[in-house]
């Protein structure tokens, strides 16, 4: 790569510029840098999937002296979201897909498929349905699909950002065995660099104008580490500030109580019976492995889907002047000032064309006057560091910004209970810290917070109580 740069067609400034480096075979490179610095763009360029119509490049980028676009099959790319990279319905076919495109002979394909599945540790039938796999399994499937193409370089774009800790570890194990077996070169972008610190042989830190630092992980100078931390990169041994409350938990009033509550999607699996209280001024963390029904529980608590069995009741304080204490029976606008739900995928929740309108939608639905709406929105924009983006379309924001905006939309109507599904998912260290302090501020302000989370650091930092869901007999 020599003074390589890329500018997206729709942007006025280059996504990347002046990148010069040389990666030799067998290296395991971790690409670090602030979010928005163009790491994913670089990875896509290496994989040869940046279309020529998408922007303009300057400088040169070559793989074995060939431009990546002509070196198809030499580089395999694993992307962030497990959902959007499963291509075919059967496990075996999905792994074979890349080989087919490379014109590999049939017998050879199936030999490669079994071998690849074995290396990534997916011991399942070739005819198994891909849609029934967990997130961690889907990522390993994607890795197997890439591996079967026998690429010289494996590129990974935040492969663990959407995985729970168990899934992330299984992917790490799979990648270690891949490199042990094949000696492939690895180029990876990952916020959670602590997970890969021992695996990487080299770290390249990207800055806004070229490479900031390049060397072995152990040699990373403290001043660069500081820059990285400020830029939101997770480094190993990061100290996490506890923001737990010090006082007695029973001092706070109960807003919601669950008695023998069993939840689930209307036609789906049924969860275990649960008994717990949601209290004002407390953070309740709900944890548990994938598929245990955490999201269905969050939707039930938010009054969005009905309880399947047992009871979920609002306290008289939360119920106010409504006729029933069952949140599911409340009208949409009645929910607004009582329950705020923030979904795992922010884009599912956006309903307006600008950040400003997005925040104003809730207060308007409550029938507040224009001045009141404006005051609230301005305050929130300020607090969420989104003022400069107030006219931007919500879909154009970065992941961290979208997450803050979706929390903001719930805050705008000042609900007593705030239910957050994976609030720290895929966040870099800086937005993570911001999210944690925002949540602890809200808690101190008397909101009841329920957070569905996989994030152990998050639980350690803010949770006042933890409800750990376990896989029980009823679920299978």
């Amino acid at each position, binding site marked *: 790569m020599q003074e390589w740069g890329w500018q997206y067609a729709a942007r006025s400034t280059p996504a990347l510029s002046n990148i010069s480096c040389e990666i030799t075979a067998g290296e395991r490179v971790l690409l670090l840098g602030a979010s928005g610095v163009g790491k994913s763009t670089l990875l*896509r360029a290496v*994989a040869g*999937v940046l279309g020529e119509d998408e922007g303009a490049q300057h400088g040169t980028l070559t793989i074995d002296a060939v431009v990546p676009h002509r070196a*198809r*099959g030499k580089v*395999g*790319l694993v*992307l962030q*979201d497990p*959902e*959007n*990279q*499963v*291509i*075919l*319905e*059967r496990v*075996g*076919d999905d792994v*074979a*897909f*890349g*080989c*087919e*495109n*490379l*014109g*590999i002979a*049939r017998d050879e*394909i199936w030999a490669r*498929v079994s071998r690849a599945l074995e290396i990534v540790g997916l011991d399942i039938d070739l005819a198994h349905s891909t*849609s029934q796999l967990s997130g961690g399994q889907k990522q390993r499937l*994607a890795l197997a*699909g*890439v591996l079967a*193409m026998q690429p010289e370089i494996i590129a990974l774009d935040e492969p663990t950002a959407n995985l729970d800790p168990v899934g992330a570890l299984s992917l790490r194990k799979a990648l270690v065995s891949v490199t042990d077996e094949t000696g492939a070169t690895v180029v990876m972008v990952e916020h959670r660099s602590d997970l890969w610190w021992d695996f990487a042989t080299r770290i390249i830190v990207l800055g806004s104008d070229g490479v900031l630092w390049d060397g072995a992980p152990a040699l990373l100078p403290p001043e660069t580490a500081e820059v990285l931390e400020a830029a939101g990169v997770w480094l190993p041994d990061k100290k996490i500030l506890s923001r737990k409350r010090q006082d007695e938990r029973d001092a706070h009033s109960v807003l919601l109580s669950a008695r023998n509550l069993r939840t689930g999607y209307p036609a789906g699996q049924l969860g275990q019976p649960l008994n717990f209280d949601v209290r004002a001024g407390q953070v309740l963390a709900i944890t548990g492995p994938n598929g245990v029904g955490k999201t269905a529980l969050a*939707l039930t608590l*938010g009054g*969005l889907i009905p309880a399947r069995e047992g009871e979920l009741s609002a306290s008289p304080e939360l119920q106010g002047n409504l006729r029933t204490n069952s949140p599911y029976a409340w*009208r*949409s*606008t009645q*929910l*607004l000032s009582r*329950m*705020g*739900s923030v*979904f795992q*995928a922010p*884009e*599912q*929740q*956006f*309903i307006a064309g600008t950040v400003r309108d997005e925040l104003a*939608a*809730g207060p308007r*639905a*409550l029938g507040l006057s224009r001045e009141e709406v404006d005051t609230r929105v301005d305050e929130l924009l300020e607090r969420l560091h989104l003022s400069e983006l107030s006219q931007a379309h919500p*879909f154009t924001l970065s992941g961290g910004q979208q997450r803050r905006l979706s929390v903001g939309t719930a805050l705008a*109507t000042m609900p007593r209970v705030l239910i957050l599904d994976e609030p720290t998912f895929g966040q870099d260290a800086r937005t993570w810290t911001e999210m944690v302090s925002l949540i602890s501020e809200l808690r101190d302000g008397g909101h009841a917070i329920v957070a569905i989370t996989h994030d152990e650091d998050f639980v350690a930092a803010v949770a006042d109580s933890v409800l750990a869901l376990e896989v029980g007999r009823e679920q299978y």
Partner: protein
Amino acid sequence: MNSISPLAKLCAAGILGIVLLLSLDPVSALVALGFELALLPWAGVPARKLLRILTPLLIAAPFAGLATLLYGRDGGDVILSLGPWQITSGEVSLALAITLRVIAVALPAVVLFATTDPTDLADALAQLWKLPARFVIGALAAIRMLGLMRQDWQMLRLARRARGVADGGGPWGSLKRLGNQALALLTIAIRRGSLLAIAMEARAFDAPIQRSWARQAQFTARDYVFVLGATLISAIAVMMALMTGAWNFVIA
């Protein structure tokens, strides 16, 4: 049934369908339906699944008949007079013919497609009929996304309730919200689609290389026999209709 080529099934259902749509008489439909029902136990579809996939058909077909009964062209003797409706013997036989026909055409199509794996169909279309792999595989990947879209739709609906914009405004308001939600679904679908396209491209999809196929699509002697069987059933049905004088060519 799973071992029959998807293309043989496509041809068989097509032949039966086209032939049966040529005439509007009860005889040919009844004959075809008789053969179909007799062969049904060999289709390899479990009874419960069969009942589930056929329910919409069994509900819809009598309604087609009922409409004919009430609004068809009057002919023959008046059998029953119900207020504005005069039901004649001509309408009764036409209604019967239409109900039978809808079932006779749809039954094989529904059963044959229920036993067809989309991946196998795509393989066959691309390898045997030489349709461009780019479109066939693209469509196949898109079908897999439909399940995700259904989940997205569900979440969008719940999100609108959470955002306080899920009720009020009467029927016009509901309609507007539905449109709005559909637009949001479209946006999300496009995003998913473009991410999937990157994933496919990253695995060398559409590379300037002759693509190979991991699964071989075959059209064997059995498949020819299968299509021939369907042709035979159609022929017998037409002949019986002609012999009984019931044949009623729709275009004539």
